[in-house]
């Protein structure tokens, strides 16, 4: 299941946020603190996660302290499912 979550999230980030469908997201690559995901797309990410996995991420949690890598994000989603 972790793989499913991970690949779905990676696909969403690459396609919808980075606009580079072919790009692979390294599980430990920094996403927020590197500026890869900019602040305008954090809301999109939380909307997608809620719609897809039924997991709510508070807007106060939308920062690199809560998750900064794909691995961390997958863990967060799993814990709340």
């Amino acid at each position: 299941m972790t793989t499913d979550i991970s690949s779905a999230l990676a696909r969403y980030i690459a396609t919808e946020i980075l606009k580079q469908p072919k790009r692979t997201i390294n599980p430990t690559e920094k996403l927020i603190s590197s500026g890869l995901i900019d602040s305008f797309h954090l809301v999109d990410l939380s909307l997608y996660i809620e719609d897809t996995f039924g997991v709510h991420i508070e807007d106060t949690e939308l920062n690199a302290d809560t998750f900064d890598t794909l691995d961390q994000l997958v863990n967060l989603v799993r814990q709340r499912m």
Partner: protein
Amino acid sequence: MKTFPQYLHQIYTESPDKPAIHMLYLRQPDLTMSYRDLIHGSAGYAHTLQAAGIQPGEVVILILQHSDDLVYSFFGVTLHGAIPAIMPFLTEKLLPEQYRRSLSALFEITAPAAVITYPEFENEVRQAIQPGSTVRAVLTTPNIPAVETVDFNKLRGFDRQPEDIVLLQHSSGTTGLQKGVALSHKAVFNQLESYSDALQLRNDDVVVSWLPLYHDMGLIAGFILPILNRIPLVLMSPFDWVRAPYKLMQAVTRYRGTLSWLPNFAYNFCSQKIRARDIEGVDLSSWRAISNCSEPMIYKSHLMFLERFQPYGLRPEALTTCYAMAENVFAVTQGGVTSRVTIDHISQRGFLIDRVARPPLPGEPFMKMLSCGSPISNSQVKVVDDKYRDLPERQVGEIALQSDCMLAGYYRRDDLTAKAFHNGWYLTGDLGYIADGEVYVTGRKKDLIIVGGKNIYPQDLEALAGDIRGIHPGRVVAFGVFNEDLGTEEVIIVAETDVDERAQDLEARSQQLADEIRLRVTRGSDITVRYVKIVERGWLQKTSSGKVARSANREKYLAETVINS
């Protein structure tokens, strides 16, 4: 004619208990600041500056996030008679060394005497202070308490004259920082008077804003205008708004907000990114003027916003427009307050080929232009051609401006100030036309990119990308392309590579270079770059003087992209 300190003193005497600002914070109850709180908190800063030996007329840089400290320090600097300039705070993604370079550049140009920041940021600031710098003091916030009683006779700001400079405003980036817009007390008051008339400002108005205070729209419309007009301001952090745009709607509901200013992208952003459950029960019927300002205004963005929020009480007549620039303090025109915003139907052919905004012939394709409204009472606008000759109504040319609230100058840059004017008219660099006394902005003469209301200079992005190994120096171009879905421009970077075309791993190498450019530019500027195109030597078109031609390369890129998609 008064100055800021005299005006603040008068408000303090007449209505000390009136709420000045409702500060909105995360995970904390709203904090209401009365004018008494405002003056006492600010006077604390004025005393601290005095004790630190800072003189009236000297520049003080403020590097603080959304907080009561930012409010107090701004007015505290003014009460002391010094000149505040608010600098954006370091963001998570920005490389610290890049930020430090910007700070050093700012210190160099504005020659500030002091910086006010947080203790945890003091070290960062000190690292940006070069040997021989004018900065004599770095003051940190928790050490600056409010005063119990205010002795106005001891505040040195009362010696300032209306013609003296009251504040500086900057755009970001190496280029933007060169142009600190210096405004006098008199210019700000002249703007407030004319703009308040244009808005038909009322005692029961309430301004709601999430805009950053380092930008003219946030600083003037979303801060100084309500505070000096004794109209309550509801202020939230841009950082919080972008993560929770519904909080704007909730704040309007809670405080019966009447006035807001938004850059065009925010109409799309709010329409697309708010969950229904987060705005359940909100009532937006109190909103009487939401002014679209600071980037090209798009009719479709207004429609999208209206469609989404009309069920929550948003009135169609609340959608207003404004054309503004820091060089005029803020507003030049305002549309939609006395009557609905004019929508001008013009012939596409007339506009694109003949440079005339004429009505379409029957059956001819047309464009819908949103009017920015009429100039406010103290400002005159005209449209000129390339040789600065006046153009008649409906002819497209450069917008020129005259008013009694123009900048005193770009701070310590008389050369740039002189270049900005022609025969007493300020040349805005914006293209547009006038019809029936209303101003329409259609584009820009200068190669400025506006992303989400932020002014971005392409040369700054090109310099960042050009630093990368494998990119041919000086052979990089950055430009903006409008994205209708986002309601703003997106940045495109095209770069020529030095990599041998015969190299076997050319595609992989190009991918890698594109990634490096994205990262370098994103971490070195205020924007995020998504679209990078690596091209072979000779792709980029140059002008006759050998410079890379941005608009020609933009056309070429768009033509190729359309063909390939």
